[in-house]
């Protein structure tokens, strides 16, 4: 009865390094979302997947950010050449149906990224 899981739970990296954040959605959920939560900023939408395709990438803040999803399941968010302003909690969520607007999103615990 697993929920959404994310790894690592915490990541400390040096400025300029690349990082990969992983999300395992609830089994069978077709939609997967990535958000960024910064202190006092709420949740910032990054990207969402319907199956393996990403119809909406509009939230990715720069071309240093990319994401992929394989097999309609696990997703990886990659941040290249990290900057200090990338420090935040990165949240993943999944939802069961194709009509994503009608379904509750189930959130993972997040990955806290700190860029030194």
């Amino acid at each position, binding site marked *: 009865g697993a929920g959404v899981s994310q790894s690592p739970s915490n990541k400390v990296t040096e400025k300029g390094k690349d990082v990969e954040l992983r999300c395992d959605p609830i089994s069978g959920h077709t939609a997967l979302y990535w958000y960024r939560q910064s202190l006092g900023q709420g*949740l910032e939408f990054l990207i969402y997947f319907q199956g393996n395709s990403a119809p909406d990438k509009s939230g990715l803040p720069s071309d240093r950010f990319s994401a992929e999803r394989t097999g309609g399941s696990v997703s990886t968010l990659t941040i290249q050449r990290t900057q200090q302003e990338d420090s935040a909690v990165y949240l993943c969520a999944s939802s069961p149906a194709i009509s994503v607007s009608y379904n509750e999103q189930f959130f993972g615990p997040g990955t806290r990224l700190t860029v030194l």
Partner: protein
Amino acid sequence: AQSVSQHNHHVILSEAASLELGCNYSYGGTVNLFWYVQYPGQHLQLLLKYFSGDPLVKGIKGFEAEFIKSKFSFNLRKPSVQWSDTAEYFCAVTSSASKIIFGSGTRLSIRP
């Protein structure tokens, strides 16, 4: 563009006080509205949602929200708060098969 505003950044109440957290959105079409809650150390979870029908929506733990279309609002209410309601509350809106837009959140602190 869609946006969601939560004007109260931090609300402090005593136990048994009544609660109302404001949420306003900007979008002219049909919307779906949500309130999510994040208790300390826990995941975000759904508190309640509105899609259609009765504009007064009941959620978990005694919370309710009222959709007032003319005011573009979806305020969250609870008649009598408990210490365990201490959390951060997020209002969200979506208009189609697209991303959900979240507000910046309201931190609620309850004094025992």
